[in-house]
């Protein structure tokens, strides 16, 4: 599955808008994840997961920054996320099903914050892009 030229354009242009709110988007996405899918908290026993916690904010930032890295290197996401891919495969070992859950929560966050930009076409492009990112992050699992 690879992104068409149109899809890449949509992602890159939306990313320019999104990046100004990157931190809060990250935090909100994680908040949505932990509330809708409480089982995902099992990966964070060492975190204070209360809304507004410093750890949640820091981690949210990290996650969205990585999505941004992928967007900025949209022609070669594999190379851009290679280190993260290894991290997830050998250290974190987050079950692959969770990437779909996080992706969905990011989509919901984008829909809520950028309703005008989140057209059906943009929705499709982002779902596909996040699916590619998820594949890259799990490609070294076995």
């Amino acid at each position: 599955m690879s992104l068409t030229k149109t899809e890449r354009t949509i992602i890159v242009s939306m990313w320019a808008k999104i990046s100004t709110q990157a931190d809060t988007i990250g935090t909100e996405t994680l908040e949505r994840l932990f509330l809708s899918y409480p089982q995902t908290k099992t990966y964070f026993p060492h975190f204070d997961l209360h809304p507004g916690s410093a750890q949640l904010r820091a981690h949210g930032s990290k996650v969205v920054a990585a999505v941004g890295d992928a967007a900025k290197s949209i022609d070669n996401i594999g190379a851009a996320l290679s280190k993260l891919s290894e991290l997830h495969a050998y250290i974190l070992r987050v079950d692959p099903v969770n990437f779909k859950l996080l992706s969905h929560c990011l989509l919901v966050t984008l829909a809520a914050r950028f309703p005008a930009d989140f057209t059906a076409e943009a929705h499709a492009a982002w779902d596909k892009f996040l699916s590619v990112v998820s594949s890259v992050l799990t490609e070294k699992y076995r």
Partner: protein
Amino acid sequence: MSNFTAEDKAAITSLWAKVNVEDAGGETLGRLLVVYPWTQRFFDSFGSLSSPSAIMGNPKVKAHGVKVLTSLGEAIKNLDDLKGTFGQLSELHCDKLHVDPENFRLLGNVLVCVLARNFGKEFTPQVQAVFQKVVAGVATAMAHKYH
């Protein structure tokens, strides 16, 4: 499986009362067909689905989307017995329509995105969590009579 507290039900009914089923129905089904194009396999008789704008403007898509969301609206009045409410529809989707239940999960998540888009800030993480329970319950109920 899904147990809805009084608080959950209040949040659900209050948000749902503000949903324009006419608009949201077409938007939801349309987006399903755009974002997950393989779902178009069930709608050969719907005419042109050749582009996002063709899909989103297709009157048959809109009409069917309204049907689906109207049904969901009924379910929202019967959250304690989703399996009972969707029994016949479940049989229909299995025996006559041959729809993979995975599609119910996909549709549910598209609906959540549409609600987020329409309600913005009001669609808080807490409200989303409750609606995820609704769509999961509906998807399970719709799959319940499959054999």
